[in-house]
């Protein structure tokens, strides 16, 4: 028997730290965020794919995106919609700024409480701007749920249980847990399907309240008649957040200092690939017992 599942996908907009150019670092050693393009965190796309597969196998299931960030992070919700999600929520407020993983998890957990009913919360294992892998487990703890991290594939979801294969050192492990649950997905899991052209047509004008206020108003009627184009935008107050637990104030960890990476350079000896040079090097390495 098929069941309907309500799935929330945690996704983050991140600077593309994997393609860092020369201008990405300022002279003082800090990151020049403006020089990096903002992308959908790669492992969150793997998580979205797992969610969409459950939706396909269980008609009537829904997939909602939840993201926290500045106004432009609404792109993450649209990207989700273009690939098959049903809706999304943007958590945005100045009071969220400077959050470490604990304050981030608190905010996300409060938003999930506001969303209400759900069966599965799924996100990438970690985001490429922090590489901490902490937010998934911390959201789970805040909601009093258990977790399965490092997931490769959701094998099945039925009778209130979920079966997941996960990556462990030197192998794989299959585990089974109860719903509702938090799952985080590895980058080695199946890639996310591309955008669906029909969905792009349907959702290309989807906007948050703030975006509608900033944009041109030609489409005002559209939002009144097509409610699915209105993206939810929530502040700290909307999710009944305690300011003391949000953003910088709610973050136990503080950044003391940031440094450029400087490697100890050595005085190196350069040789050619001639027989004589290479034999000389090998003889030297043998003589000082580095090899042999």
């Amino acid at each position, binding site marked *: 028997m098929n069941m309907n599942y309500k799935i929330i996908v945690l996704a983050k907009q991140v600077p593309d730290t994997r393609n*860092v150019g020369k201008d*990405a670092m300022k002279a003082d050693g800090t*990151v020049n965020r403006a020089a990096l393009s903002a992308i959908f965190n790669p492992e969150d796309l793997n998580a979205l794919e797992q969610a969409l597969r459950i939706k396909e196998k269980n008609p009537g299931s829904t997939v909602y995106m939840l993201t926290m960030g500045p106004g432009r992070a609404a792109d993450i919700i649209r990207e989700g919609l273009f690939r098959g999600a049903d809706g999304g929520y943007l958590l945005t407020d100045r009071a969220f700024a400077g959050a470490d993983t*604990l304050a981030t*998890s608190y905010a996300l957990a409060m938003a999930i409480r506001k969303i209400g009913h759900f069966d599965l919360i799924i996100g990438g294992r970690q985001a*490429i701007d*922090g*590489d*901490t*892998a*902490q*937010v*998934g*487990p*911390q959201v789970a*703890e*805040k909601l009093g749920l*258990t*977790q*399965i*991290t*490092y997931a490769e594939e959701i094998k099945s979801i039925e009778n209130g249980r979920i*079966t997941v294969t996960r990556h462990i*050192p*030197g*192998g794989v*492990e*299959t*585990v*089974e*847990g109860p719903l509702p649950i938090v799952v985080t997905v590895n980058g080695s899991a199946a890639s996310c399907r591309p955008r669906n052209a029909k969905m792009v047509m349907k959702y290309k004008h989807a906007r948050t309240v703030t975006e509608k206020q900033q944009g041109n108003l030609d489409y005002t009627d559209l939002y009144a008649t097509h409610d699915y184009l209105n993206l939810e935008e929530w502040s700290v107050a909307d999710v009944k957040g305690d300011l003391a637990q949000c953003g910088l104030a709610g973050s*136990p*960890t*503080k*950044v*003391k200092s*940031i*440094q*450029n*990476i400087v*490697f100890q*350079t*050595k005085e*190196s*000896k*350069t*040789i*050619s*690939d001639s027989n004589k*040079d*290479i*034999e000389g*090097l*090998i*003889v030297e*390495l*043998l003589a000082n017992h*580095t*090899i*042999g």
Partner: protein
Amino acid sequence: MNNLFVYCEIEDGIIADVSLELLTKGRSLANELKCQLEAVIIGTSLKEVEKQVLPYGVDKLHIFDAPGLYPYTSLPHTSILVKLFKEEQPQIALMGATVIGRDLGPRVSSALTSGLTADCTSLEIGDYEEKKDNKIYKNLLYQIRPAFGGNIVATIVNPDHRPQMATVREGVMKKQIINTEYKGKVVRHEVKDFVTDADFVVKVIERHVEKSKNNLKGSPIIISGGYGVGSKDNFKLLFDLAKVINAEVGASRAAVDAGYADHDRQIGQTGVTVRPKLYIACGISGQIQHIAGMQESAIIISINNDPNAPINAIADYVINGTVEQVIPKMIKYYKQNSK
């Protein structure tokens, strides 16, 4: 009270290397802080584990031994650490930045509302000035980690919350026994006082673990290839040389991504950290993420046909040439000159 705690991972009855590395580091930090080093082992049918950890200078070992605690699942281990830490009030708690440590650490830190810094590569003790309130904090744990995809290094502190928690990368710290006869106290806890039946909701149905096929961490000589090796065929040359000089073969992320080498051979920030006696970098340009994983090698040879490859700056010897040209010659002259 207010001691330094290390959570020790165990697989097949053997304490993980990363945990022993942390005990070694923990011992020296505890000396600096004039506090005790305590270790925690959670598992099933634990035999003679104290012999494995006490020689690292552990003053007190907490053992939790009961069915269902191995293989690891999140909730029972979390419940144990949370209750133990509430009772013992550690000032610092460390664990490996492994699949287990990165699953457990955040959960424990969330339950205790303490901070946690992931994937540290260095730990130090020092003071911190909160400029806003003009307040000085003495003897905090500096949690030092690469950030922003490895492009910068950040020092994180945890001024007001305890324990100061950090996960630490495998292989970045040395492990060293301080005294094989070290006298530490062993406490076997009553597990049912720490966990409830509800903690055992996740079941491990199946588990396949194979011993690592390579010995990158332990090999005194590593020959490592990058994208510049050019092809999987050329990569075989590295294995040929490795066989002759008794070395292990590693790879950069670019080489792994290109399919030249298996993922478990990757050296660098995402991958293994190594410090061999000799590191031969073949066709590796030297992204900082790679250098971070091998810079402590005693001698570095770079084989590269680009004289401006960044890795050359940290190399002791730079051979200007291609892998196809240079490696067969190295094999030939090694055979001719050895013995």
